[in-house]
Structure formats: structure tokens, C-alpha cells
């Protein structure tokens, strides 16, 4: 097993996780847990490949992917804020709606059942980075990815800057920390939450487009394979801070990359490595839970210790 090769594929595998994690992180910072990341991505993946197949243009495909994902995010936000649906139930409904709808459209529009691929679909081509490619080991890991990979990692500092160095970011975090205080200070709470949800959709749109047009060049039912959930795990583990979240997403991506390679060498079960993100998150929740219970949580809406 070539360690450099594994790291190279870890960067690749982590890319959709980074997109989804950055999207989910924005809503997390605004005080919402968006569990529909998978739904956003699958819709984008489908819209991307369908547009690419119809027009042959990658740019149009990317735009279609982002727009479709944002529309789904708008649907979810409308139900959550306008109709006051429980955000979790809405999230589950939107996710499974998206799974079902893409599978249905795959048959209805593209005429395929389960998997769609075609030689005529254009594909994002790998880019050799000018100077980095010459660095001995690092070059082989970092260079030769598609543009969407680099964009994903560029989003990390951009989002960190937006959240921590702009007025908008301050308000988003304020909405997340203390919505009542934010409302009292004149911040439009619902509007900001709506905005973060739409941005979440846009980022997942990139992630979905990456999945179907760059990571592989096909569409399969439920092809997001719970990447949204892993991204959510990363967000939870890193408490929604952009850089740590991205690092955790990279680690989870590495575990996934290893779970593909390691069994080929050692014959171990891939499931045990794939378990890592979920188990780590549950453990993190336990630790956080114990700590919060000790520090007598102030705004626990439904704690049992009422005395």
C-alpha cells in the first residue's frame, strides 16, 4: 500500500465532506442543525449530471447543481420558518424526498434504473499546480486534483473570514448563541437563518456536483452514501469552527480512503473503519453531554432536572 497514494485519495474523498461540512457549519453557527445535507447533495448531483448530459457544458452543470440545491434548501427553510415545521422532521422528509425524487427522475428523464453513466458527459479534468507539483511528496498529494477540490479547500478560509471577521458573521453567531438577544438588538433572526440555510444549499450544491461530475462520472441512487451525516459528525466534533471542522472532515475522509485500501492488503473488514466517524461523534456527544450537565445548562429547553 502506497501511503502517498492513500493521502492523495484522502484529499479527493474528503472534498464532498468539506463542502457539506462547510454548508452545515453555517446553519450550525446560526443555531440550526441541518440534517438534510445528503438531500441537498443528491439533488445537486442529479441536476449536475443531467445538465452536463443535455448541454455538454460543465459550467452550466455546476450552475444547475447549485441552483437546484438552493431551491431545495429554500423549500426546507420555508417549511421550517414559515410553516414552523420541526427542523429535524423537515430535514428527514426533505432528504428522503430528494432520494426518491432523483431516483424517479433518473428513470423518468434519463431512462435509466438505478445507475446512469454515459461517455458523452464531460468531466472536470485534473489540474497540475505549477510550483507545488515539484515538491517531492507533498506535490503528489496536493497536485493533480480537479478545480472543485481546490475550491472546496478555498471555502474554508473564506467561511472562517465571513463568520469571524464580518458584521454578517457576527450576527449569524449571535443568532446561534442567543436568538432572543439578537432579536432584541434588532437583528432579523429568521432572515439570517434563512440566508444561512440557502448558503448551506449552495455549498452542498458544489459538493453534489463534485460527486457526480468529478469524483466519479455517473449518477447512482443514494450515491451520497451518508456523506452529509459524516459531515454533520465532523461539525459536531469540532463544535462548528471552520478550520477544526475541515480537519476532522479530512480525518474522516482518510478513514474512508483507508477503508477502501486496507482490506485489499490485510483482509480486514471495511465496516470497522467506516464506523469511525459515527462512533467518534457519539463519544463526543457523551463527553459534551456530561460536561454540559455538570455546568447546569442554562438554555436547555427540555432538561429533566427541573429542580
Amino acid at each position, binding site marked *: 500500500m502506497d501511503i502517498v497514494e492513500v493521502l492523495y485519495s484522502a484529499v479527493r474523498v474528503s472534498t464532498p465532506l468539506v463542502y457539506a461540512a462547510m454548508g452545515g457549519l453555517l446553519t450550525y453557527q446560526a443555531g440550526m442543525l441541518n440534517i438534510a445535507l445528503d438531500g441537498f447533495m443528491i439533488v445537486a448531483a442529479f441536476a449536475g449530471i443531467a445538465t452536463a448530459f443535455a448541454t455538454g457544458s460543465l459550467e452550466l452543470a455546476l450552475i444547475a447543481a447549485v441552483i437546484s440545491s438552493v431551491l431545495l434548501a429554500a423549500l426546507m427553510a420555508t417549511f421550517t420558518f414559515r410553516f414552523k415545521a420541526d427542523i429535524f422532521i423537515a430535514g428527514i422528509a426533505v432528504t428522503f424526498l430528494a432520494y*426518491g425524487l432523483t*431516483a424517479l427522475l*433518473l428513470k423518468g428523464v434519463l431512462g435509466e434504473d438505478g445507475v446512469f453513466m454515459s461517455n458523452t458527459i464531460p468531466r472536470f479534468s485534473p489540474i497540475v499546480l505549477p510550483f507545488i507539483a515539484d515538491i517531492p511528496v507533498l506535490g503528489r498529494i496536493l497536485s493533480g486534483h480537479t478545480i472543485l477540490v481546490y475550491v472546496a479547500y478555498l471555502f474554508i478560509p473564506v467561511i472562517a473570514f465571513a463568520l469571524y471577521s464580518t458584521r454578517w458573521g457576527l450576527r449569524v453567531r449571535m443568532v446561534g448563541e442567543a436568538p432572543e438577544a439578537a432579536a432584541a438588538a434588532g437583528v432579523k433572526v429568521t432572515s439570517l437563518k434563512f440566508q444561512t440555510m440557502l448558503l448551506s444549499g449552495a455549498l452542498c450544491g458544489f459538493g453534489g456536483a463534485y460527486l457526480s461530475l468529478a469524483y466519479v462520472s455517473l449518477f447512482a441512487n443514494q450515491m451520497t452514501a451518508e456523506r452529509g451525516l459524516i459531515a454533520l459528525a465532523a461539525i459536531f466534533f469540532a463544535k*462548528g469552527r471552520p478550520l477544526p471542522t475541515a480537519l476532522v472532515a479530512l480525518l474522516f475522509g482518510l478513514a474512508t480512503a483507508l477503508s477502501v485500501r486496507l482490506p485489499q492488503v490485510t483482509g480486514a473488514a471495511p465496516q470497522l473503519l467506516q464506523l469511525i466517524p459515527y462512533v467518534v461523534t457519539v463519544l463526543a456527544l457523551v463527553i459534551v453531554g456530561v460536561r454540559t450537565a455538570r455546568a447546569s445548562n442554562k438554555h*436547555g429547553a427540555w432538561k429533566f432536572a427541573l429542580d
Partner: protein
Amino acid sequence: MSVETLSAPTTRPYLTSLLSAVVNPIMALAIAGILGALLVMALGENPFEVYWLLISGSLAGIPNILVTLQMMTPLLFTGLAVAISFRAGLANIGAEGQMLVGALCAGIVGFAVDLPALLHVPLCIAAAFAGGMAWAAVPAFLRVKFGVNELVVCLMMNPIALLLTGYFATHVLKAPGPTNKLPDVLPSAKLSTFSFYSQVNTGLILALVLCVVLAIINARTVRGFEWKIIGLSPKFAYYGGIDVPKRALNVFLLSGGVAGLAGAEQVMGQFGAYYDNFSPGYGFDGIAVAMLAQFHPIGVIFSAFLFGALNSGSGVLQMMTGLTKHLVQVLQFIVVLVLAAKISWDWLTHFKKPSEITMRPSRSSTTSET
């Protein structure tokens, strides 16, 4: 808020609650039906023809009805599991994982223990119940003890269950042969089937009995009343002298156990062994079933029958039209989405202060607390 809207629920509370229990689901179904018809039309098919295929494919003739009953059985268990927990204000969306673990337990006990059928079947069922309960214990305990959001834990426990059971079915206890499955359960652990048309088995009777028993518990016992009060207002329940953490833990475990029974029925009745990744998402369908039933155990029978019928009718779509069975999934989760919104509309009209709407676990401040 005007006087009329405030007094409306209080004048005839029984009538309003009955109305909302029946009208809301029917409205949601109508909305889903119309949106589904538009979608079908957009895909170039005739919606009347498609809906007729769904109905005739599931209800025309004894064989079709038997298949519908077979498809309905797991939904009864998972729908009931979700309904029990939601009624007590606990959102157990981990029924999928609990079912898988229950199925694995039933599968292991089914082939590893040799007993006469009279003991073997109950033992397997008990094992499945215990397995589901154990899987539910993690979110339940974290919820009750530390106030950790049970939804997130449930979400994570689902893939863990899938991967772990997959590990058992592909490595630890894999039966010889190309398929990823456990060895077949012994004949003594099999649930008897009624006919050769479908795999419908005694599990269906168990599920129906369970629905009726739970309906009686809910309506006629102190325990059932306590669950309802905890769901409506844990604070009120606490000041009324109910041991809220203990009851909530019990409900959550019961819910997990019932979800585990779905796995037992699948393994002991329909497949005869634990197959890796056997579930097409019955646990998540259970959410739709429970919501359409408005969390009433008898309502679960109706909504499980409806979704079971749609599922069994959808097989025909693949052959006769350019659509797939996923149309049913789309309809199902439109219903969930509409009903999710509907629930809050009810709350809004029933409670004066908006702040009191957070009687169910509040989602708005969960991130700061967990």
C-alpha cells in the same frame, strides 16, 4: 389574536382534536396526491392510470392483498415504535438501527440455539426486543441523563447499526456461500406463513395485537396518561408528580424494543435468515406511518396498511410505466413534510404564548446545549 380563534379549541375540545386527528392526515394525503399527480404528468404518464395501477396492484385479488399485508407488517412495528416515542415527546428516529440490531439478534438466536418451537420462537422474539432496546438505550440514556439531543444520537446510531450488522453478516458469522447473510434460522424459530402467495406470517398478528394493546394502555392506564403528559409538557408532568426521567427512559426503551420486533418478523418470517442490508428503510418509513397516524396506535394500522399497499402496488409501476417504486417514497415524505408543518399550526392555535410552543424538544437552542 382574535377572540374566536382563542375560544375555538376550548369550547369543543373533543371535537376539535378528533377533527384535527382525521382532517390533517386526509389533507396531507390529498396534497401529496395532487403533487404526485403533477409530477407524474410532468414525466409524461397519465396520473389516473398510475394511481389505478397502484391500487389494483395492491388490492385487486387475494394474492395482491396478501402481498400488501406482508409489506404492511414491518411498517406496523416501526410505525408503532415511532408513534410511542413521539407521543411522549421523544423523537426516536433510530428505528432503522434498532430494527437491524433486533433482526441480527433474532437471526443469531434463531440458528445458534436449538430448542423446541414453543420456546424457540418466543426466545428469538425476546432477543430481538432486547436488541432493539439495547440500541435505543444509548440515545435514551444520553437524552434523559445529560439532555443530549436524542435525534442526533439516533442519526449516528443508524449507520453504526448498519455497519456492525454488516460486519457480522460478511465476516464474523457469515454463512458459507456468495451471499452476505447469517446461516438460516432453524425451522423451530420460523414464524408460520399463511399462504404460498406471500410471506405474510404470524408476525402480522403479533403487530396488530401490539397496536391494540398499546391503544388500550394509552387510553385507559395511568402509564399511558403519564406518557401523554410528558409529551405535552414535561414541566407540568414533573410538577404533577410524574417521575419524568424514568418514564421517558422506559418509553424510549419500549419504542426501541418494538422497532426490534420488526427485525424479528423479517428474519423469522420473511427471509428465514439475517441478510446483510435487508431493509429498504422501514425504520424511516415508520416516521411517515406514525405521523400520518397522528401517533395513535390504531391509526398506525390504517396508515401502515396504506403505505404497505402503495409499496406493494409500486412493483407494477416498474414494469408497466416509465416510473419506479420511488414514486411512493416521494408521496410518503410529502405527507411527512405537510404534516410536520400541520402539527405546528395546531400548536399555534392551541397555545397563547409562542414561547410555550417549545413543549416538544426545542430544536432552536439544541446546538448551544449539546
